[in-house]
C-alpha cells in the first residue's frame, strides 16, 4: 500500500476511532516505536540552517535516512531542535532534489540534462574565454593588479569551512576581485 503522509494521518484517525471501540493497539504502537531506528547506523551532523549550530543524529538503514533527531550530547541544543532543524530528513529524502547537471543553452526555453564531464568542459572553456578577454595586468595608473574583471562570484555560507577556503583559493587563483557572499546581505 502506498500511503502519503496526509493519507497516513487519516488512517491514524481511523485507528484511533477503532481503538475507541475497545481494541487495544498500544503494544503494537510501542513495538513500532522500538523498531524505528533498529539496525540503523547513526552519524552526527550539525543543522545547516541558522547559526546556533544544533547537533542532530542521523539514522541510516540500507543507504536511506530513516530518522533525524536532536543530539542530546550537544551542550548547545541538548536534543532540542526547531521546526527547520527537525525537518532535515526532508532535505535528504526529497524527490525534488536535483540529481543531474542541467544546461540551458542561449535563447533556449528549457533545461537539458547533461553529463558532468560535458558541463565541466564547457564551463572551463567559458571561464578561460571570460578570463582571457577581461584580464588586466595593470590598472589605469599603471599599477600591477593581475585581475580578472569580467567574472563575478557570490557564495557561499552554505558550504563547509574547508570548501570556503578552497573556493576562495580557486577564485583568487582565477584572478577574481568581485568576490562576495551572504555575509554582505
Amino acid at each position, binding site marked *: 500500500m502506498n500511503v502519503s503522509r496526509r493519507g497516513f494521518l487519516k488512517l491514524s484517525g481511523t485507528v484511533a476511532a477503532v481503538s475507541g471501540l475497545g481494541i487495544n493497539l498500544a503494544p503494537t504502537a510501542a513495538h513500532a516505536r522500538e523498531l524505528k531506528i533498529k539496525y540503523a547506523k547513526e552519524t552526527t551532523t550539525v543543522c545547516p540552517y541558522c*547559526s546556533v549550530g544544533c547537533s542532530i543524529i542521523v539514522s541510516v538503514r540500507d543507504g536511506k535516512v530513516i530518522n533525524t533527531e536532536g543530539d542530546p550530547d550537544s551542550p548547545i541544543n541538548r536534543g532540542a531542535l526547531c521546526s527547520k532543524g527537525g525537518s532535515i530528513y526532508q532535505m535528504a529524502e526529497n524527490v*525534488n532534489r536535483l540529481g543531474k547537471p542541467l544546461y540551458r543553452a542561449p535563447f533556449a526555453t528549457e533545461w537539458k540534462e547533461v553529463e558532468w564531464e560535458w558541463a565541466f568542459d564547457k564551463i572551463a572553456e567559458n571561464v578561460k574565454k571570460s578570463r582571457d578577454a577581461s584580464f588586466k595586468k595593470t590598472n589605469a595608473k599603471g599599477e600591477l593588479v593581475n585581475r580578472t574583471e569580467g567574472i563575478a562570484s557570490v557564495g557561499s555560507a*552554505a558550504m563547509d569551512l*574547508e570548501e570556503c577556503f578552497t573556493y576562495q583559493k580557486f577564485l583568487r*587563483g582565477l584572478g577574481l576581485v568581485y568576490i562576495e557572499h551572504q555575509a*554582505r546581505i
Partner: protein
Amino acid sequence: MTNHWVDFKNSDIILIMGSNPASNHPVSWKWIQNAVDNRGAKIICVDPRFTQSASKAHLYAPLRSGTDIAFLGGMIKYILDNKLYFEEYVKNYTNASFLVNPDLKMPGENNGVFSGLTDGKYDKGTWSYQTGPDGVIKKDKSLSDPNCVFQLLIKHYSRYTPELVTKITGTPTDKLLEVYKLYASTGKPDKAGVELYAMGWTQHTVGTQNIRTMCMIQLLLGNMGIAGGGVAAMRGEGNVQGSTDHGLLFHIWPGYLSTPTASLASLKIYNEKQTPTTKEKDSLNWWKNKPKYVASFLRSMYGKDMALEDAYAMMPKVDDGVNYSWLTIFDQMYKGKFTGFFAWGMNPACSGAHSNKVRQAMTKVDWVVNVNLFDNETGSFWRGPGMDPTKIKTEVFMLPCASSIEKEGSIANSGRLQQWRYKAVEPVGDSLPDGDIMSEILFKVQDLYKKHDGPHKEALTQLTWPYGKKAGKHFHYDPRKVAAEINGFFLEDKKIENPTKKGEFREFKKGDLVPTFAWLQDDGSTSSGCWVYCGSVTPDKGILPMRRGQADPTGLGLFSEWCWSWPVNRRIIYNGASVDPSGKPWDPSRAVITWNGEKWVGDVPDGVGDPGKGRPPFIMKPDGVASLYGPGLADGPFPEHYEPLECPVEKNLMSPQKNNPAIKRFDKKGVGSDLDVYSGVGSCDPRFPFICSTYRVSEHWQTGVLTRWCPWLAEMQPGMFVEMSLELAKAKGIASGDKCVVSSARGEVECSAIVTPRFKPFIINGDKDNPIHEVGIPWHFGWITTKDREYNPGDKKAEVFTHGDAANLLVPTIGDANTMIPESKAFMVNVVKKGGR
C-alpha cells in the same frame, strides 16, 4: 559573537534589539529561558513589531524602524547623566581618557556632520588623537579635559534627550526610561548584560553605527569580556561565520587580512603599510604579527617553492578606494561589465536587494554557473516572471550538489565554534560535494591553460591543490586534508623560541602541524590557510572540531572540550577584561579566568598578561583599549542619528543632515542605473506612505531555497504575507486573509494580509493626527515553488506549493556607509487590497 550561545544563561539582563531569536534562532531561547528560570534574569525587547521574542519579554518597547541610534544614544546620555557607568572599567579598558584633536567638530555644532566632510567623504584629519613628542597619545585619567573622549561623549549625546528621542523613535518616554533604567543596572561589577542583534541592525544605512552604539554602551557598563555579557551577532547561516573567516568577500583574505590594493606594489610595502604599530608601551598590539599570517596564507596558496614576493604578485589586487561589494556587482552586471557569473550555493534572484535589477542583470552575462540542491529563482531566472527566454542569451549551468549530510566537513556557528559533520548517506542522484565540483572545474581550467596560452597563467597553473585524489570518474575532495592545510604546517625543519616563554626553544620538523598561530613565521617557513584556525588540528588529538567532551569545570557552560572555537579554543573573547587591573575577577561568582598563582585557569585567557603587569586587554586594538571613540569608521567617530534613505519624515529632528552623509548614493546622477528609483528621499512621497521592514519566520530559511521544497515547512508557512496594524487595515479596508499588493518604487509583491495588534502606528514628532504606519513582510518566498507558473515537462514540482515572490523585489539599492549591506529594514511602500486602490 563575542561570547557563545550557552553563555546567555549567565546574563542578568538580556536586551533583544535588532533581532527576534524566538523565531529565528529558536534553540537559543533555551539559554535565555535558563537565565530567567535560574537567575531571575529579565528580558527586554525593543522592536517595531511585538514579535515572538517580545511576547516572552518582561519589558517591550516599540520603535520606528531605522531609529536605533536615537534610542541607544538616549541610553548613553542616561548612563552618563546618572553616573551608572562602571568607572574603573571605563578608565582602564577604554579610550575614554584619550585626548582628541581640538579642531574636531561634532554634529551638534556642525550642521549634523563631523568635521572634514567633502562630497560624501570624510577627511579624518581632525578626528585624530593628540600625541606627545614621543608619539604617545595624550591622556587625562581624571576624564575631565574638555577634549578627552569621555567629555566629548557627554557633549555629543547631551542632545539625545528622552523628549527628542521619543519624537524621533515614536517610543513612549516612560517605556524609554524603563528600558534605560533596567539595562543600565548592569553597570556594576556583579551584574552582566548581553545584547542580541541580527539583520535588524545590520540592514540599515547606519548599520555599523547601530552596532557600535551598543558596543559603546557595553563598554560603559563593563559588559565586554565577562560571562553573561558581550554583543551577540546572531548570524543567519550555519556557516556564515566560517565563510567570512575564510575571506569570501572582496575586501579580506582569510583571517581578516586586508585584500592588497594596487598601490601596495610588493609584499614588503604591504607589510609596512598594513601592519598596525603603536607607541603605547604596555600595549601588545597583536596585529603586529600580521606579516606572519600573510606569509603563511601565501604559502597555502602557492606552496613553498614560489618566493613569497612572487606569490604576492600572483594574487589579484583591488584598486585603492574602490568598492567591489554586492550592490556594486549587480549594478556593474546590469551595466554589462561581466561575461561570467558564479552563483554558488546562493539565490541572489531572491536574496539580492532590488531583485528585479538582479534578475535583469543576469540577462546581460554570457554564462551563469549556479550550484544548489534544488531548482531555484537564480538558476531558472531566464524563465521567471516577465522574462522571455527566447531573447535571453545567457548560458546557464545548474549543478546539483550534495547536502550537508551527504559529505563531511565542518562549519562554524555564531559563537565561533567549529563543529565537524559526518557523511551519513551518498549524495542524491549524480550530485557531488561542492569540493569535488570546484576541484573538477579548476583542473579543467588548469588543463586549458597548460595546453593554450593566456595572461598570467601561472597564477592558476601553480596553485597548489593537494586535497584528494581521482577515484573512478571524479576527483574526491578530502576535507580532512584541507582542515590540516587551514591549520598550517612547518615547511622546513626549524628551531624556534617559544613566543610566550623567552629562552625556551622548540624544534619542529618539516611537515609538522603548527601548534598555534603564535608559532607562525613571516619568512615562508610555515603555511596556514587561515591563521585564526591555527591550532584546530593537532598531531595527537587529530581534528579538534570532532571532539565531544562534556566537561564544564567552571559551571559557566564553556564546554571547552566540545569541538573547538577560534581563536585557540577561546570561548569568550576579550576575557582579559573580565578581571580588574590587578587580575581579580570583577565578579568572582562568574569568573571566566582566574589566576591560580602560576597561570590563568578557566577559559583560554585573552590579552591579559600576568596580574598587575599593566597590559591593557584589548590586544587586537593597537592601543590595547576598546574604542568608545572610533576614528576608523567612514561615517564618524561617534554614532549619530540619521534617517533611512527612504523615510516617512520630512526632517531629521536631530540635525539638518537628513541621511548618513557618507553612504554611496546610487540615486545620484551617473551612479546607479535606470532601474534605481526611490521614493521619499528628499521629501515624503504620498504614493508610498508606509514604512516596510522585512523579516523571517521559524519555518523557512533565507530565500526558502531549501525549505520551500520541504513539504512539512511549506505547509506550516505557505506564502507571502503582509503584517499590519488594526488601524492601518481599517483605514485601507483590508481584513485578515485578504489578497493585497505591496508595492515600492521598484516593484510589487502579492501577499495575504495578516491584521494584528502586533504593529501599532507610531506618533512621530508628537503629531497625533498623522500617525506613521509600518508594515512587515517575510522574505523567504519566490516564484519557483508556486502553483501557477509555467511548468515544462520534467520540471521539479513542489509537493506543497507556496505563493508569492521575493520581498527583495521592493528593497532599494542603497547600503551602509561602512559595509554596503543593503537597507532592507526600512524603506517605503504602499499596501492596497488586490483589485482596489
